[in-house]
């Protein structure tokens, strides 16, 4: 074990000098593994010895094991990532975060592909890994054009390209990774494998549909057929698959939540809708504090009633699933402490609000877009606060994919695939 501290004399108030035997090298280790990721990377710069210690393959294992048994996720900084079209109709990435440390993330994402071109588009995410394409693939592009996906880790800068795939209009995509538990040898880094599942668009409800699946184990795309006896119906607002508990979830237009396993191409879970669900659309499927959530914005925009937001959480996942109405708030009851204009705006009869994302672990907070700002909405305390601006002058935003990027306790490695 490394003995960084052995030769060092620690400061102590009027006491005899410590002998080398008093300071096992693992003492420093015990402190370091408790540091958040950002500090760990900073500490690599302290000295070459520290860099070696932190960069050792076994270190990641220690960090992961320590955090697996702690509640540290409740303090991990995170950011929202989403694309918007700017005034020149160019797609840009917005990194919206309430904590520092993410400003460099956007450029890091763009640089991962070794191109300094500002047009990496995130298509899906799973924790700290992002699935991206280099260009905006226009819907007009015919099926003769090929699309190349890349899996990137913006923290480490690593990137892996998937083999090209024939483009498919308005296909839905989902991305998930898994740790393969070898657990035998503590010092080996955990092996990661991932799958990308692409569902080419089909109209209406279907009990059987084709998918393309990429496996990091084979390094190839393959075709599969997924059976879904309860019926799966892609809506226009059905966006990216949400990875949760090893499955990719989509909200089906026939008012069900459906989960697929891209490792087996099976439909593994179907959950019925919440009792209180209205026929209007489900706004956002996401995960908050380890549970799936959906929401609806009601009384808006066509009813000219004051809009209200309802958020449901899926409980009893392993016992058939039960949706619980966690929050129901009227926007005109919400106030902003720091932005009085926002409080005033919320009293308008016609509001334009888009639900962007759930907070990854604070069960009271949801992020919304109001006017051209990302606003955090505390549904329990009924408080709104502006997080950042979205550089747009037009109000229209077709709310599409918004990703939660949570800094992990240690970056996830991207496995290389056999070529």
């Amino acid at each position, binding site marked *: 074990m490394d003995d960084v501290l052995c030769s*060092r004399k620690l400061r102590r*108030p009027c006491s005899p000098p410590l002998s080398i035997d008093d300071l096992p090298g693992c003492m420093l280790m015990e402190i370091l593994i*408790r540091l958040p990721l950002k500090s760990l990377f900073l500490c690599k710069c302290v000295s070459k010895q520290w860099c070696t210690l932190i960069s050792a393959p076994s270190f990641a294992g220690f960090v992961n094991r320590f955090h697996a048994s702690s509640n540290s996720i409740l303090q991990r900084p995170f950011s929202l990532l989403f694309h918007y079209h700017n005034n020149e109709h160019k797609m840009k990435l917005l990194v919206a975060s309430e904590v520092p440390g993410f400003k460099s993330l956007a450029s890091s994402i763009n640089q991962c592909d070794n191109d300094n071109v500002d047009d990496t588009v995130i298509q899906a995410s799973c924790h700290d890994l992002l699935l991206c394409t280099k260009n905006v693939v226009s819907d007009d592009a015919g099926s003769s054009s090929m699309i190349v996906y890349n899996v990137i880790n913006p923290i480490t800068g690593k990137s892996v390209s998937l083999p090209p795939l024939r483009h498919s209009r308005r296909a839905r995509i989902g991305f998930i990774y898994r740790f393969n538990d070898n657990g035998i040898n503590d010092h080996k880094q955990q092996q990661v494998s991932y799958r990308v599942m692409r569902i080419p668009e089909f109209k209406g409800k279907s009990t059987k549909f084709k998918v393309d699946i990429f496996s990091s184990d084979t390094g190839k795309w393959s075709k599969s057929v997924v059976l879904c006896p309860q019926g799966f119906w892609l809506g226009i607002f059905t966006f990216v698959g949400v990875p949760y508990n090893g499955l990719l979830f989509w909200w089906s237009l026939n008012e069900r939540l459906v989960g697929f396993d891209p490792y087996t191409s099976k439909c593994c879970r179907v959950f019925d809708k919440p009792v209180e669900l209205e026929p209007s659309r489900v706004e956002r499927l996401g995960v908050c504090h380890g549970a799936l959530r959906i929401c609806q914005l009601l009384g808006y925009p066509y009813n000219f009633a004051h809009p209200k937001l309802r958020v449901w959480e899926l409980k009893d996942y392993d016992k058939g699933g039960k949706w619980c109405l966690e929050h129901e708030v009227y926007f005109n009851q919400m106030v902003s402490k720091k932005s009085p204009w926002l409080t005033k705006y919320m009293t308008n009869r016609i509001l334009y609000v888009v639900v962007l994302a759930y907070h990854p672990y604070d069960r009271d907070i949801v992020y919304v877009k109001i006017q051209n700002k990302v606003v955090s909405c505390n549904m329990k305390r009924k408080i709104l606060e502006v997080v950042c601006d979205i550089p747009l002058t037009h109000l229209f935003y077709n709310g599409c994919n918004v990703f939660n990027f949570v800094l992990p306790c240690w970056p996830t490695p991207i496995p290389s695939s056999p070529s």
Partner: protein
Amino acid sequence: MSNTSENPKPSSSSAKMTLKTSDNELFEVEEAVAMKFCTVKQYFEDEKDSDVAARGSTTVIPLPNVHSAVLATLISYGKKLPQSNAVADNHEEEETKKKERKKYEQGLLKNLMPGELLDLISAANYLDFKEGLEFFNQALADHIQNKSVEYVRKFFGIKNDYEPHEEEKYREEYAWAFEGVDED
């Protein structure tokens, strides 16, 4: 700091042990607390084994590597931990105790100089005091969490062995890690 023994609350075990620090101070500690220091526990058990004849007087256990100031803090922390032989509390009592402990911990950390954390960790390590190690390791990690590289180097007394251009390159490559760091 002087001897911190107090009148123990009436409990099932009020056996005491005496610990002697590197600066020859004696601390009388309840057995229940002292047993949390596994090194002490081991010593005590070895002593018991080696001398079957009942020892009338309390054993004095020498701790040549621990200074009195440090031991006082560790004992104080050890006393606040839930005792393993305590009667099981109901949920309310448990919650109150938890809150009290939290308050105590915050107060303790406020009065500590950051440098003392290293001493406490080193002593807790020597004494094999698991709960103390966990607490003080976390406290130290929390303390250096958002500090600059220069602060960390100074704190641990580490010499920078990077060339300026190497350090510069690293800082550029991982700019996000250096964002929002506390001013020194």
